[in-house]
């Protein structure tokens, strides 16, 4: 009895449309080689010029990824099933004007030797391993704001190997930012923050794609931008954006890692779809002028680093499915006492956005919502 090879649909045009082919082989490499001898068109699909298995081709033996076994040298016996499935995610059709489709985004399946070294401190932990690191490389996070919270968060997400990081910020780097926004440097003053962030990330980790959105997030663009990401991290600095990001994440069912800082104190939480939202916590914003911002009150720079890193920690935990998320809890930080407490957060069944009978089902005018005195809200 030979080994059975299941051919993923996109490859069947090279195998005379056969979904299953049998070969004699002692390991995966030999099986795929023999397959390529029998179906020559398959060779360049599976192997690169150096004869290495292409990074975007998934290979399984009896439903286990060969990455978790012995790679291409994984031995196979009669009766085993090898499955060969390319992992191209999306790509879509060509544009309406006839121009070709953008190349499909390759999903990272196999780490390069350099990546194995870069992420070795993650991968040697059984809780993460190669599987976890690949999840990070294939994940996407949207960071709203490249300021106090966004800066440290982006740095750690990039270092950890999050494959795609979207950064939304319409502002330029200012000298007063440098006391805490550690992703920006003195020579970046005057440049758009998203460009500065992208440049710093490029030097830290070339595996990471930073997608800059040099614009303000608004009701007109929020859904469109957020839909392409797995997790959202809120580093915004004003109430209208806070409510906008919240509502958009509820509508799109995206996990939201939220935080805010005031002088020496901070609050952090995670909103998971269906488990409550920012409006459950604060149905209405304070009256304008009731809460000073950092320019008015000042802020203890290091606190933003601490909090942004906590946010990045929560994002990475969500991507990896590790530990307990800060969902259903609000973490309260008092850095002067170095005191950390949590209070319970619950979903409000009457929440207008995420409750049992939502009355807000579309993005609204958030400036008006935050500008109108609280008592006038219905």
């Amino acid at each position, binding site marked *: 009895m030979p080994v059975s090879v299941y051919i993923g649909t996109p490859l069947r045009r090279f195998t005379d449309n056969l979904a299953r082919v049998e070969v004699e082989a002692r390991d995966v490499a030999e099986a795929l080689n023999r397959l390529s001898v029998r179906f020559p068109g398959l060779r360049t699909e599976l192997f690169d010029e150096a004869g290495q298995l292409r990074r975007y081709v998934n290979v399984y033996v009896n439903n286990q990824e060969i990455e978790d076994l012995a790679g291409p040298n994984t031995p196979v016996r009669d009766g085993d099933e090898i499955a060969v499935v390319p992992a191209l995610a999306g790509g879509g059709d060509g544009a309406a004007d006839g121009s070709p489709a953008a190349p499909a985004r390759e999903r990272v399946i196999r780490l390069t030797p350099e990546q194995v070294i870069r992420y070795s401190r993650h991968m040697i932990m059984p809780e993460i391993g190669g599987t976890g690191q690949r999840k990070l490389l294939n994940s996407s996070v949207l960071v709203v*704001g490249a*300021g*106090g*919270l966004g800066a440290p968060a982006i740095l750690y997400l990039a270092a950890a190997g999050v494959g795609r990081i979207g950064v939304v910020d319409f*502002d330029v780097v200012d000298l*007063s*930012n440098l006391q805490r926004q550690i992703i920006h440097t003195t020579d970046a003053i005057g440049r758009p923050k998203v460009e500065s962030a992208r440049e710093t990330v490029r030097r830290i980790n070339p595996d990471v794609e930073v997608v800059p959105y040099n614009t303000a997030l608004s009701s007109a663009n929020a859904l469109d931008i957020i839909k392409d990401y797995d997790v959202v991290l809120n580093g*915004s*600095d*004003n*109430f*209208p*954006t*806070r409510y906008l990001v919240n509502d958009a994440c509820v509508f799109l069912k995206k996990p939201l890692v939220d935080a*805010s*800082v*005031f*002088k*020496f*104190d901070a*609050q952090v939480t995670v909103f998971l779809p269906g488990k409550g939202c920012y409006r459950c*916590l*604060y*149905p*209405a*914003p*304070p009256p*304008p002028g*009731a*809460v*000073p*911002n*950092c*320019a008015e009150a000042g*802020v203890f720079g290091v606190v933003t680093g601490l909090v942004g890193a906590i946010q990045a920690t929560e994002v990475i935990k969500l991507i990896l499915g590790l530990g307990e998320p800060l969902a259903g809890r*609000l973490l*309260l930080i*008092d850095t002067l*006492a170095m005191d950390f*407490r*949590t*209070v*319970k*957060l*619950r979903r409000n069944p009457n929440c207008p956005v995420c409750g049992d009978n939502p009355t807000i089902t579309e993005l609204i005018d958030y*400036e008006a919502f*935050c*500008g109108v005195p*609280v*008592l006038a*809200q219905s």
Partner: protein
Amino acid sequence: MAVEVRVPAILQPVVGGQKVLRVEGGTVGEILDRLDQEFPGVKKLLLDENGEIRRHINIYLNDEDIRFLQRLETPARDGDVVSILPALAGGGGDAV
């Protein structure tokens, strides 16, 4: 022992700069009244004209939001911690 009231940074100026106040136990409403006697104006920042907790403020008894307990009637005893948490947005520049 008494009830510990934790005051957030943004409200500390109103209570003489203090972060932690100790008051005699009672309902949360009674505690706010007592605070207001010592620091006039505190109550108005936390409660609206109808005597309801303002919607951008949350008050916790230990780790539970009093909205899910008995709201202002929630009893606080010696050793309990009452925390006041207003919404924060952070940030800088000309944001709202």
